[in-house]
């Protein structure tokens, strides 16, 4: 197992290198430079700026320069925010995004597993259809529709919750977390319903029932352990998606996370900011997928064989 993890981590190095090359080339190919403004930038000012940020040098030199700093943990200065380093922006934004992502995931698991398991216990009754309909609606409503709707209902009409902000007013973390988590709640519900249905029809559950074990013990201790495996394998990509995909929610709710910088960095041609955040998210995607695989192997010996040898 240790060798497997080590191997995957070593494989991540060339992957990250390639990711940074692709991003670097794409962003340099994008028209418009980082210093273009509505009011024409005088050529002499532009010249000094390009020199200062080494943009006057050939692309491969720039890339080598960037990478050699990046491996030492220095992601360079932001182009749009002259006083900020990319490290500083990530250090300020990422904890917020992580916190938001974790709440959203928590919400997704709580609601998703709850309704999925509930549905699987009573298949094809209203206790199945009702939660599953909600789950499907969750998938169908994009965050930029759901967010404003929740704000309108809970923030404006009922006046129960703040309409925007993060750590400004008590309770302002609730709506963004729910908005971000709802899509994933829907997926978790579908996955756990499917997994549970299949597991509940297996022999070992029947055996346990025949032995007269209490139903609650059977479900929680035996069925869920196997039936929720699909959910576990979903967790890695889900958390990665939650973190790199929080842009819309952060915009709607004025959350000072990294998602906004990530998307705006591309529009602002903030080369270093884009590269820094892309590398961060790429590493996270790799790590979370690895964690999910490891957890899966730990929970399911059959997969362990395939993972290690496959």
């Amino acid at each position: 197992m240790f060798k497997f993890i080590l191997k995957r981590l070593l494989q991540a190095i060339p992957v990250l290198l390639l990711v940074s090359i692709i991003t670097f080339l794409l962003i340099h190919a994008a028209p418009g430079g980082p210093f273009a403004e509505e009011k024409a930038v005088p050529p002499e000012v532009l010249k000094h700026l390009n020199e200062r940020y080494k943009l006057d040098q050939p692309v491969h030199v720039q890339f080598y320069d960037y990478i050699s700093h990046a491996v030492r943990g220095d992601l360079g200065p932001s182009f749009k925010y002259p006083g900020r380093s990319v490290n500083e922006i990530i250090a300020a934004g990422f904890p917020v995004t992580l916190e938001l992502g974790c709440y959203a995931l928590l919400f997704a698991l709580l609601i998703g597993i709850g309704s999925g398991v509930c549905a699987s216990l009573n298949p094809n009754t209203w206790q199945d259809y009702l939660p599953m309909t909600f789950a499907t609606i969750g998938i169908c409503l994009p965050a930029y529709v759901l967010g404003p709707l929740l704000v309108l209902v809970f923030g404006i009409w009922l006046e129960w919750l703040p309409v925007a902000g993060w750590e400004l007013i008590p309770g302002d973390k609730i709506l963004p977390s729910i908005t971000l988590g709802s899509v994933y709640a829907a997926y978790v519900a579908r996955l756990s319903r499917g997994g549970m249905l299949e597991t509940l029809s297996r022999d070992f559950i029947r055996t346990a029932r025949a032995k007269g074990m209490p139903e609650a013990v059977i479900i929680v201790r035996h069925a869920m352990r196997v039936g929720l495996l699909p959910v576990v394998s979903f967790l890695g990509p889900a958390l990665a998606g939650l973190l790199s995909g929080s842009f819309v929610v952060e915009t709607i709710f004025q959350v000072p996370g990294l998602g906004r910088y990530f998307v705006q960095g591309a529009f602002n041609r903030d080369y270093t900011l884009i590269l820094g955040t892309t590398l961060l998210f790429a590493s996270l995607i790799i790590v979370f997928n690895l964690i999910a695989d490891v957890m899966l192997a730990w929970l399911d010996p059959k997969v362990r064989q395939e993972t290690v040898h496959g």
Partner: protein
Amino acid sequence: MITGNALKAVLSAAFLFIASCGFNYETNVESGTRQGILHIGNGDEPRELDPHVVTGRIESDLCLALLEGLVGWHPEGKRLIPAAAKSWEQSEDARTYRFHLREDAKWSNGDPVTAADFVYSWRRALLPALGNNYAYMLYYIRNAERFHQGEITDFSQVGITAPDDLTLVVELENPTPFFLQLLTHMSYYPVHQATVEAFGAADERGTRWTRPGNHVGNGPFKLKEWVLNRSIVVEKNEHYWDAGTVKLNQIVFYPIQNATTEERMFRAGQLHITNNMPVDKIAHYRQERPGALKIFPFFSTYYYLFNTTATPLDQVKVRQALTMSIDRQQIVDKITKAGEIPAFSYTPPDTNGYTATAQVRYDLERARALLAEAGYPDGTGFPGLELMYNTSEGHRRIAIAIQQMWKTNLNIDVTLTNQDWKVYLDKRDGKDYQVARAGWIGDYLDPNTFLDMYTTSSGNNDTGWSHRRYDALIARAGATTDQDRRFALFQDAESILMTELPIMPIYTYVSKSLVSPDVRGWRPNILDIHPFKYISLVPSADELSADDLSADDLSADDLSADDAD
């Protein structure tokens, strides 16, 4: 089933939790008004707080709280008043100004503000390596341009001197009637030398001198807290010479980009003042909360650029036909909806006493005739146009309406292309477009800030249009002192511009804000500048008198009422 019950329990617990932490919190506006803390939306995260590095309005609003130039705008935005300078004299030839600084003016750390501070700061603003995008604002000073371009390195040749601690002498290249106005611009703000140099060289960008704890300013407020992308807090500066006038204890700036989010925060009592307002909400506010809605003409023109270097737009008649065939009144009534003023000239009406004499018209018959004369009767044979705008809901709506007007009125097919901001700038700059959306905010209240853009040598002239007589008129106006003669020259120039039409004016912007009735001393004005030192907060329940409010809003409300019908 047990799980089902557990689920219900969890859900109801969650619901109770949500309900309990949500109910009955005091809004920002309530607590802020009580404690003298102003909560204000500021559009976006500022890039920096260094007045010689940044250029945007977001940053300039923050600098307005933290720093103070020699002169400042009166809160009504109609005249200049002394600020860091208590008085000044102008020489006979109008080329030399002598400013007298206040004895009691202090930096926020207690140091006195001296003339040497201004010499240092203006020199810094001109240092080539700093990369100050607004350095050209200082080019009116003798030799400033040459110093910035690196042609001379000896700053003593630049027309800025400090004979003593409290006297500053400025010599200009030309008599510049709007020079005092320029002094309100942030590129003329002073910075504290010891602080700047404690964190890096004078011409180093983005050092830590602007961080809370380090920042030293001479403005009515000082920097208290700056949390990236969340908020910036400034608090009253006790060392400020006019601290007695300052009523607010703190201002909290929120970098809210999304106007819809901002409006919701205003409605929920999280903000006193918004930076913007969604157009679709205007009708509602006009009806339900007219007092909160502040709409006022803004010194800025919305227009389209024609690329005059390529067919078919190289033909004046085509440009004239296009300009004459859009219904500006309908655009402002039905699309922009905030009471914008249809623009028939490039300069906004009544620019500090100047009004354009030549105007474009809305004349469909003439437009069709011109198009036929250009060789495209009823649009036949017209090659089609591409209209480019930068991604934004507002620009998109206007483009859609104009696309349809040109189709219906001239039978011309227009395709729309939205581009992200940097691509848009790149294409505009490279003349890789046919028609492009544009907007220009005047830097100072004078027609020159609009008209010198379309001279041949201007870096902002992206149309490829070049007219020798136009260039000559603008140059002559620049060397003229007499205001009437200057304006006459500008009028001549503008009538060339409005005949040749490298640009098509559409409307004069308005500034749109929502302002809580608790806020006093916030006066709508054409520059949309609202000095924080005059703003105070009074719970609207104990309003002094109704007159006090209406006096503030008279002009704005008149305007909205006119446009409502």
